[in-house]
């Protein structure tokens, strides 16, 4: 008598169906990659006008990028804003998420929705609205204004990932810490933060990334004489597209790839996608 196989066979749609799914999936994946590849390829072109396939091979446009103060300043500005706004979003968002997850009080749902809402609202309207508010209070072309606007825009990422992490840990550990004499600040910093390290980092990372790539808010809030990199690119595209602009865009792609690897290293890309 032959013992029945205990392994469960993966349910198959049928070999043809499976093949179709595979083909379709990889086509779409190709579709997702192709534009990025095209941009990078075109950035190495020898000539000023943009074409694909590129004509020749040259790094001159990258050199031009780094030699141009407008580009370099915008790169620095984008970086500074992203770094500072994600830091601020974490400092503001972590305690807020903690209170929202752990405590029960009237208006909790409303507060939760409010904190996550910037994700759900058309960015263009938010940008316009912020311009109006900032103009009224004199922050319209300042670094501080741009920073605050970005912080508001990315706080939801921190609140969401921290919130998810907090649900996954044992709340009695926090009670134990309090029982042993820890003040609330000590509980948050000495006990909870280390336990949700991954979530905090992921939140901060997402905040950084979303600030870094933001266009619709930054368009309205230039700092006197300076724009963030995406806005510089957007403005340049209004006239025509040249290879140096493509090179600038390619730098954005390299940064994006590095960030993807970083996120994967910190939290694992598949769990990140659930957030």
């Amino acid at each position: 008598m032959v013992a029945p196989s205990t392994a469960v066979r993966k349910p198959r749609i049928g070999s043809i169906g499976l093949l179709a799914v595979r083909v379709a999936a990889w086509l779409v994946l190709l579709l997702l990659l192709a534009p990025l590849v095209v941009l990078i390829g075109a950035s190495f072109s020898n000539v000023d006008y943009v074409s694909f396939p590129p004509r020749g091979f040259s790094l001159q446009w990258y050199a031009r990028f780094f030699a141009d103060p407008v580009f370099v300043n915008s790169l620095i500005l984008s970086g500074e804003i992203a770094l500072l706004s994600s830091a601020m979003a974490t400092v503001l968002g972590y305690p807020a998420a903690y209170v929202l997850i752990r405590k029960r009080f009237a208006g909790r749902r409303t507060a939760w929705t409010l904190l996550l809402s910037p994700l759900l609202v058309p960015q263009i309207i938010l940008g316009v609205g912020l311009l109006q508010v900032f103009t009224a209070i004199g922050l319209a072309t300042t670094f501080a204004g741009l920073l605050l606007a970005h912080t508001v825009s990315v706080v939801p990422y921190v609140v969401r990932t921290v919130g998810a992490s907090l649900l996954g840990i044992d709340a009695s550990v926090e009670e134990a810490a309090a029982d042993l004499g820890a003040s609330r600040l000590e509980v948050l910093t000495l006990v909870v933060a280390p336990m949700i390290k991954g979530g905090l980092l992921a939140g901060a990372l997402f905040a950084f990334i979303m600030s870094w790539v933001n266009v619709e808010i930054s368009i309205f809030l230039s700092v006197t004489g300076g724009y963030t990199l995406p806005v510089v690119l957007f403005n340049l595209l209004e006239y025509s597209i040249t290879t140096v602009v493509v090179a600038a865009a390619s730098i954005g792609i390299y940064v994006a790839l590095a960030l993807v690897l970083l996120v994967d290293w910190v939290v694992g890309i598949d769990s990140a996608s659930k957030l």
Partner: protein
Amino acid sequence: MAVTLAGRHALGGETPRCDDAIIKISGVSKSFGSIVAVDNVSLVIRRGEFISLLGPSGCGKSTLLRMIAGFEQQDAGTIEIDGSDAVDVPPNRRPVNMVFQSYALFPHLSVFDNVAFGLRRKRLPRSQVNATVAQFLHLVGLESLVGRYPAQLSGGQQQRVALARALVNKPKVLLLDEPLGALDLKLRKRMQVELKQLQRDVGISFIYVTHDQDEALALSDRIAVMNRGALLQHGSCRELYDRPLTEFVANFLGEANIIRGRVVESGPMVVVDVAGHRISVRGDGYAAATGDGVLLALRPEHLTVADAGDGRGNQLLARVKDKVFLGNAFTLHVSVAPDISLLARGTDRELFDRLSVGQSVVLAWRPEDGRLVMP
């Protein structure tokens, strides 16, 4: 049913002297929305005693414990810890410490850092911290594991770290919330012995929450039984077992037969009619008037089973419904009347073999072994 308890003191023996008390719980109530979790509980915890809060899930024992620790605020009543009202004192400033059901060890800290946590919050000098931690790790037998992390420890070891971590702060009272629940039976029994010894060594009061009556009996000096938020009875183990006040307590600690009857004569010895038989039971302060319906509690081990009665003590005629062999003992299910079934327990093998299902037997017990209980 007009029944009253004869005197509040019947609830738990003598009133303790005031300076004997380390925690005074007076009239404490707590509700969550429409659910009453703790209902007007008053209890005194004495210095140096091991007391268990015993009851089924949802009876309010954990809520009461958490209120002592400061994690919940009572809706009514006061909790005094060592003479002072704890009402506005947050958990991190109360002189009590808690061992949690899930141990709640800090996963990112080593055993040493876990145990040192409370001492460091007090900003004690490092040398003192190190010395005290070492002392308590030795007390629980974990000196060799100082550098390990909680994830690397077994359940029993985590348990001890949690104990050391709480005790190292020299709390006035240690609160334990079903700390042995996650351990397997053998380990539980061993830990029970160690816990009791630990309490004796350290000398402070332990308040122990459990739903396991065997555990409560094995560990405690006193037991407080709770059900549905109310404190039903408290006293020594013997007291609760031999003199339960309510049907619930009789059933919860050990097994009990609960028999309905009607009072025929009242007095120091009350005579109750049970299915036509005259049963004597001690009054013991239970106010019973002739004609009242009462409940009689009887432990299975107090019942003797024989083919015929000898006329002494209380006797009931019954029919054997089932007999169950348990190895070192046996259980007998008998029926006195269609609505009265009893459980008897014995160790006489010969008797067991002789009895057959359907046979008529005589149940007997001494009058002082039965008790009148409240529903």
